[in-house]
């Protein structure tokens, strides 16, 4: 847990800014002309989500959130790899 009010306020402001970055990033998911653009944007959104979860761990003072972020990173990696394979080969397996 963070004691000083300054750091607490700064962390909350940065969390707010990161969450508001999700909206412009999802523009590319909707408008991206090709599948690979959408995939790159989803990858970007997942990275932003990892950062958001780490900020949430700071706000709540809970260490478990960092483990959640690690799990999200692992599953996002598998998902990105398989969708990239689907784009190039036309099938996943």
């Amino acid at each position, binding site marked *: 847990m963070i004691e000083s009010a300054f750091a607490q306020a700064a962390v909350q402001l940065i969390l707010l800014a990161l969450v508001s970055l999700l909206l412009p990033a999802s523009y590319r998911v909707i408008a991206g002309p*090709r599948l690979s653009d959408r*995939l790159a944007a989803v990858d970007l959104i997942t990275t932003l989500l990892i950062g958001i979860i780490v900020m949430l761990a700071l706000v709540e003072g809970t260490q478990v959130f960092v483990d959640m972020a690690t799990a999200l990173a692992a599953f996002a990696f598998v998902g*990105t*790899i398989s969708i990239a394979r689907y784009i190039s080969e036309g099938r996943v397996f």
Partner: protein
Amino acid sequence: MLLEVLGVCALVFGLFFCAVGVVGVIRLPNTLTRLHASGKVATLGLFGLLLGAALLMPSTAMRLLALGLFVLLTSPVATHAIAASVNRRREILEELGQEPEPAETEETFQVDVTAALSRSKIQDIIEAQERALRHHTPEIKRPSDSGRDSGRDRD
């Protein structure tokens, strides 16, 4: 106190690169350049956030280090997979004899090109496109009327 100021500075650094990456993903013209921009978020942006979190909450430093190492290992692989899939798709389209999807252009470029063309050239292009379309769409073969009638009579 010093640790907290340093941590907040690192968080702001990470947030800045996250914002730059998102702007790049929106504004850059094609897939590979967009991948370049989103790579900035994955390395500089996320590592700034992780460093700031480690400075602000030192008890989680080891977990954050593990997360950072994992992202450092997987993020380039994922980006490379997307880039390779773009190239591979282009190769497949060329092998099939189809036109590779045209390099994407922003609307401003399109407006410039059409303004530079004279009207007769635009007319030529439109006619050529129509000819190509007529050439490519196979005509549906209709069975001759007499054959269909005789079949129906037999039934």
